[in-house]
């Protein structure tokens, strides 16, 4: 199963605007606008590579939500979007 991990998280410039965040990504020169959950995904993936299921479980816990199918689909779409932006990447092997 895919493991997702953040790319150059430490290089990101993050500004907090009352639980909404603007994130400058030096590698692309782009600014991204994230809500609290969107940023939490990056934080989690900076701490350790995780599978989609684990990410969903941790987010559901943090935000007191149910990790149902719809939620899982939304997170999967977000991960793919982040991957396209170069914020995260995936590995097919379980990292050591």
């Amino acid at each position, binding site marked *: 199963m895919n493991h997702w991990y953040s790319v150059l998280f430490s290089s990101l*410039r993050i*500004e907090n605007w*009352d639980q909404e965040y603007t994130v400058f990504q030096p590698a692309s020169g782009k600014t991204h606008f994230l809500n609290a959950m969107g940023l939490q995904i990056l934080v989690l993936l900076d701490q350790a590579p995780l599978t989609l299921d684990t990410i969903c479980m941790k987010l559901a816990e943090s935000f007191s939500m149910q990790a149902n199918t719809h939620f899982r689909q939304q997170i999967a779409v977000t991960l793919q979007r982040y991957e396209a932006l170069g914020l995260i990447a995936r590995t097919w092997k379980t990292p050591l």
Partner: protein
Amino acid sequence: MRIGELSFGQFRARLAGEGLRVGIGPFNIRIQTQLKSLAKNLHALYAWYPLADGELAEFHAQVVPKHSLRRPLTPLIRFLVDNQAPFPPAPAAHALPTLEWGINLAIALRINHLLLFHSAAVERNGHVLLLPAWPGSGKTTLCAALMHRGYRLFSDEFGLMAPQSAQFMPIPRLMPLKNQAIDAIRKFLPEAVLGPEIHGTQKGTVAHVRPPEESIARMHEPARARWIVFPKWVPNAALQLESLPRSEAFLLLASNAFNYEMLGESAFDAVAHLVRNCECRRLVYSDFDSALAALDRLTDD
């Protein structure tokens, strides 16, 4: 020496010869043309600007005749900046707005040491009120009203911010009113000095407001911003001046700046600094009196 101190003959000779060097805010612009009608308009509307004789010019603008086989009976002109023609030929009667839009375009495309917001900017009580908006929002009209009510004009088009110092640079240029805004300003501000009405331009009828003498005399005095108001003129709307979340203000400003992506991290820092240090509002208005009263209250010391 100011342009108004030149006789029309002297002024026209400079335009037709080596070019007239004029200081406008932080830039010097060299203008060349042999077009008498354009010279007459510029002599009247540029009267307060200083000559920049002997100084380097950032922009070299020309308005030259253009002969067209397809339109042999219509006198046409072409605008050139540094010998490049960014626009198709225009009728000679449109020379003034073509020159003004051309200079704006050159500034928007070439200036990258400053962060360029697409915004009106005025100063009151020592601080800048930034009015960022897209075309059609009425920012030029509102700006014209403000500058005739005691606000110092920085610009109706550009918020020029030095990213490191957070200072805004004045660049008080002619302000092109369009269509019904012309009559609205004539009625609201009979004292405003307007150039001729020029019909049939790509933006309809245009008339330029001359900036006040004081705004031009103080165009080298920068100031920091304290208020950011996103204005929108809506017919018959009740006045609203409501607080805007800083996150939204950040996004609107970043997407509004001409060169935000070009400047990268320094633009991100500059916008973050600006939003943190300003009161951010959204303004919906339909009449000048109530809008000006609300902005006066906001900017009172």
